[in-house]
């Protein structure tokens, strides 16, 4: 890390500490109501209880399961439909209007419908995460295939390459780079789907805990849960970035 970068990190960390200290001070002085804005120490205590007491893990597990299953299914569905639409014009005529509509609306409004159809268990969360991810990936693949550099395809043909080589050497890597461009957003979407699904109706998961905290007016628990979700998503972003850097290293030169 360069000294300049380190100084910048120190400044940012310092600013955050000052903010937290001010909040704590205001709360201790009685200027803000701890019922609405619990001080950082209270939030910290709740966090420690959640983590150390082991209450968090089953809920975290449920959300992870729904998010990752939704991410995986959404990727598969998005890639399959994207390729189908890009390579077969009749499929595109069929899919494009639906996808454009789904892309235009806030897809989380489908959550109540999925609960009615699939119940309050895992299936409805998975379905919501899948829809969120699949639409995003569909457009990444659809555009990726259509934006393939025709010169590269020609080059391969003059070297004697048939369809198999064109797909393997041009289409797949080109589409991969598009999909990875959307991958971080997809991870975020998968979590949004899982948590919002749980929020609407469920018996476990981080969204369920949030819903519980809100219905009991427990601001400290709410803030603690928001922090947990932020930490999880940031951690996943970092992982996604490493995978992306590795797979797209020809780009980061």
């Amino acid at each position, binding site marked *: 890390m360069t000294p300049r970068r380190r100084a910048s990190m120190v400044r940012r960390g310092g600013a955050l500490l000052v903010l937290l200290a001010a909040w704590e001070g205001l709360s201790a002085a009685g200027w803000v109501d701890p019922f609405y804005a619990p001080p950082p120490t209270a939030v910290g205590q709740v966090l420690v209880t959640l983590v150390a007491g082991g209450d968090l893990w089953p809920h975290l597990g449920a959300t992870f399961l729904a998010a990752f299953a939704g991410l995986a299914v959404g990727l598969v569905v998005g890639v399959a439909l994207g390729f189908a639409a890009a390579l077969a014009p009749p499929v595109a005529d069929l899919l494009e209007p639906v996808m454009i509509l789904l892309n235009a609306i806030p897809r989380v409004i489908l959550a109540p419908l999925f609960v009615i159809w699939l119940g309050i268990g895992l299936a409805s969360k998975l379905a919501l995460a899948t829809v969120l991810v699949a639409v995003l990936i569909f457009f990444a693949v659809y555009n990726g295939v259509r934006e393939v550099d025709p*010169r590269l395809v020609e*080059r391969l043909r*003059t*070297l*004697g390459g048939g369809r198999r080589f064109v797909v393997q050497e041009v289409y797949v890597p080109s589409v991969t780079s598009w999909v990875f461009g959307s991958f971080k957003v997809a991870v975020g979407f998968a979590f949004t789907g899982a948590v919002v699904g749980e929020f609407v109706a469920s018996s476990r998961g981080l969204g369920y805990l949030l819903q519980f905290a809100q219905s009991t007016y427990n601001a400290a628990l709410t803030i603690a849960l928001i922090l947990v979700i932020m930490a999880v998503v940031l951690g996943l972003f970092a992982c996604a970035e490493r995978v992306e850097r590795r797979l797209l290293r020809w780009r980061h030169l």
Partner: protein
Amino acid sequence: MLRVSGLAVGFGGEPILDGIDLDVAAGEFATLVGPSGSGKTSILRVITDLLEPLRGTVELDVGPRDVGFLFQDDALLPWRTVRHNVALGLRIREVSSSDADERAEHWLSLLGLAGFGDRYPAQLSGGQRKRVAIAQVLALRPRLLLMDEPFAALDAIVRTRITQELLDWVERERLTVLLVTHDLEEAISASDAVHVLGHGPRATIRSRHRVAIPRPRRVLEARGHPAFGPLLRRLWDDLAAGKLPQGPNAPARPEPRERAARAEAARS
């Protein structure tokens, strides 16, 4: 080696080129010159089956796998290493990947790029990318080499050097070449025969010239050969007789008497 007869190429039924006849003998280095945008490239695209002609035929004495095509731009696969790009054609020909990689390395070192195998195209200069594109084509050991203004984007020094390397290889392998360019000096210094394409629409070949400079050639020395200047002028005249504007650097048009004498000389 290559015979093109009565070729017409165009888009939407309207020919931009018509009645193109071209004969390239085995071992001959032929060049097609013409103004930019005259459709020269389409002729190469028809020969390599990338474009369907309106009329006409192409006859080749070799199979399609013996034809190498060096494009104007060096569009390499950006997501593959230099080695993989060079080995591409070999893999397509079902050479095992270790063997293909080994041969790719060999070609890279022949073209002065030893040790660059693990890089990606984005890490190379324009001249280096061009060498990779050349290695990619030559690694397949083509017998007929088609080139579409391959050096247009390079600076003069790199261009001269790469042209010389390619000429040496052509000489060694007795390759048959069809080069397409708008650069008259490049055309003369490299080739045995120059075919001049006229202006469109319905452009056709306006004249053909033999280059009386012995092979093997040194690019720079060919320019000093006594036959070079007069041929350059005639090519200029042929091209300028159409619609080309007379720029300040254009050679003066020769007097009619001088032209008649030159035509006489050309006939003999």
